[in-house]
């Protein structure tokens, strides 16, 4: 159970406070309601590049990191297809420094050409390090456009290609800031050894004078229902064959989301899970096999990925996966099995409450989904899932004409 207080500033900034007196630290988390899904298709990777530029100085403060480190603080950020999230951890006695820094960059950036030039290079190196210079590193660059044809989830957060990042201009940066970085599109959470009335004063002092800006109205093309099986085979210089199957599934707030999440746990959570037990241990088909969901806000993907052992053909491996999926469709899972994954879900929730940063991020995220109280309702939504739900949703998801299969074939593949 995460307790919190909530208020909204005159400019529309939503503020949540979680009081946890057990720590000498505080966290400030700011979520901006913008992600790679909001990008233009000819300018992909921009939300993430922009995240880098948020550290290049703001209108009144030439350097962001230094003053924060000077008061013993640390920060980082991440961009996903849905959101951009910034967070600071610092000794609570110096919390006001976080207000000073974050409010100034919400007010305006410095828009330095030099910073843009350097961060373009840094992001290009990130692109190379994570997506190009690793075996299978490009999987999301291939799998997303295979599974999505219309929705902007068809490109990865890093962007479609290096040139989109290389071509970013300072005018684009300014326009992006104006469109997405204002109080109405942000959620501020403070957690730690703090009192709500003090945070309210600080929030009003530092944030309330920031102009509210124009609310960004999201209008994304819906992904049309897939009606044919899709497949791509990549002959690549990878060390071993690999298979990825992506299925369309529900969006984050639908009931079926929770069902699909539990299906992925039944298949792949822990060493007693079905795919691990049967396909890796018993049938000795894979060296590595996982099922998981992308967890995105709009309709997401259910993914199964595995690396067949040497000597096992891709066809055999794929058939073995489908065999397990068919069982999920035709037979009820055991009550015991379902109880097991629910227990795991419950304990995971308790473990996640150990960290104020986790709590702050989750509060922001549920507020974005529509209601911060959602953080305390997750467990019951999982507990409500029945074996019938599991079978029905398996039947919805695990269909050939809802699947996109990506296969890497290694050079020595017989």
């Amino acid at each position: 159970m995460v307790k919190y207080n909530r208020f909204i500033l005159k400019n529309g900034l939503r503020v949540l406070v979680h009081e946890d007196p057990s720590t000498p630290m505080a966290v400030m988390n700011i979520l901006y309601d913008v992600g790679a899904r909001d990008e233009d298709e000819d300018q992909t990777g921009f939300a993430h590049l922009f995240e880098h530029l948020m550290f290049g100085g703001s209108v009144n403060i030439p350097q962001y990191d230094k003053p924060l480190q000077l008061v013993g603080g640390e920060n980082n950020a991440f961009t996903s297809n849905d959101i951009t999230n910034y967070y600071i951890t610092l000794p609570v006695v110096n919390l006001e420094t976080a207000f000073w820094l974050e409010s100034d960059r919400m007010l305006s950036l410095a828009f330095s050409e030099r910073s843009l030039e350097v961060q373009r290079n840094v992001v290009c190196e990130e692109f190379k390090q994570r997506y190009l210079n690793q075996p299978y590193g490009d999987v999301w660059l291939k799998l997303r456009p295979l599974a999505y044809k219309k929705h902007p989830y068809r490109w990865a957060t890093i962007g479609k290609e290096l040139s989109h990042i290389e071509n970013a201009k300072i005018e684009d940066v300014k326009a992006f800031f104006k469109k997405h970085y204002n109080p109405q599109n942000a959620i501020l959470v403070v957690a730690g050894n703090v009192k709500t009335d003090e945070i309210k004063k600080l929030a009003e002092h530092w944030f309330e004078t920031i102009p509210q800006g124009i609310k960004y109205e999201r209008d994304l093309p819906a992904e049309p229902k897939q009606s044919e099986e899709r497949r791509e085979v990549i002959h690549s210089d990878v060390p071993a064959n690999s298979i990825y199957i992506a299925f369309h599934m529900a969006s984050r707030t639908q009931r079926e989301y929770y069902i699909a999440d539990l299906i992925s746990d039944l298949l792949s959570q822990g060493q007693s899970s079905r795919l691990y037990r049967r396909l890796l241990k018993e049938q000795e088909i894979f060296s590595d096999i996982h099922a998981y969901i992308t967890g995105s806000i709009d309709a997401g993907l259910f993914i199964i990925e595995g690396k067949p052992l040497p000597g096992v053909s891709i066809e055999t491996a794929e058939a073995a996966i489908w065999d397990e999926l068919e069982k999920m469709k035709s037979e009820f899972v055991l009550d015991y099995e379902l109880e097991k994954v629910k227990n795991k879900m419950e304990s995971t929730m308790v473990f996640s409450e150990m960290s104020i940063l986790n709590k702050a991020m989750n509060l922001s995220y549920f507020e974005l989904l529509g209601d911060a109280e959602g953080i305390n309702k997750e467990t019951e939504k999982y507990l409500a899932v029945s074996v019938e739900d599991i079978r029905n949703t398996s039947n919805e998801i695990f269909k050939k004409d809802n699947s996109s299969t990506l296969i890497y074939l290694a050079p020595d593949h017989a």
Partner: protein
Amino acid sequence: MLNRINPPTFHPIESVNIISPESLKLSNGSNLFMFNAGDQELVRIQWVFENADFQANTPNINSALSAMLLEGTSKYSSAQIAEKVDFYGAYLFPEYNYDQTTLNLVTLTKYLDNLLPIALEILNDAIFPQQELDTYKRNSKQSLKIALEKNDYLARRQFNNTLFGNSNYGYIQKESDFDQLNRADLITLFKRQIIPANCTIFVSGKISNETINYISNTIDNNWRKTAEVPSLSMPVFNAVPAQKVVMERERGVQSAIRIGQLSIQRSHPDFPALQVLNTTLGGYFGSRLMMNIREDKGYTYGIGSGLGSLKHTAFFTISSEVGTEVCANTLKEIEFEINRLRTEEISEEELTLVKNYLLGSMLGSLEDVFSHTDKFKQAYFSGLTLDYFDYYTQQVTDITPEALLNLATEYLDFNKMIQVVVGKI
């Protein structure tokens, strides 16, 4: 009028308080430390074992022992163990590093009495079934094959091998090493190493007296003394001559870099001060390497340096992955930054920044009861007590620019470092 130019008042970081554990000596010979704090009804138990030697040049068996620990006992199969642990939503997992093997149990307190007996069953009677061993060998070979395609992995192991030779720290694993693994050897090592006399136990969480009594009695009554402490080797590591090892790889758009030399362990009086120096150079986002090579030149997504304190030696290392076309320049800039530390005194301004950052990050690293335990373990296994953290704080606070310059001269010498590049230069 709101002043956005000047920062709010800075409050210095107060001293860092680490929870003092209570300790018990169990009659089976193991030591138990407990850390009681937190609001969540959960508990973590860790059994930490010093790695015992097996035969020369067989470090593979130590990691296999760890990885295979949960794969079956006389009473329970691997599948049954996994089933029980998962059913109670718990985590039971072994962890291996060069010096120690740890069995971790993390669970909601209400399920402890379902899980502790299983953990003890494993510690008493792991049997390493042949079929599970075959699975482990097969899958490990495949993972190694994939790792060998990663420049970063290749650079790290080449660096370790150059610095530490074929010891446990530097051994280069080969696919064929997995073929040598056999049950008999694993069982021999298990009986020598996974015993109370070679174990330190750490219990952390929100623990009532009743819980702690349950834990200590259950362990004491169900895990009996079987053997004395195994003989543990004391290898000595000497500095190796400076050298540059380049592993050319045709494909690839980045090169992985590792540069470093032997260094001092945590128990050395200079360690905290050297940590300040390391942080200045490459230990945080605002470090000189990051500012120069990432934020000024854009050569990399990240570059960092670190001090590794091992049981028998210690090392300093710099690592990065950079665009192949800027690899040579990166090496030059690294040399430049190291030499700058040895020739120019750091400004008071920068030094204050590093000190405050380090103290804040120390405070921030103590977020939950588990992290208090982890800090204690760091000191404990270096032969230190919790006073170390007061000493650390004091040393960090007191260090002067002149002392840092002397430290750099003594401990960081680019001309004596090993350089490893995997990719193109």
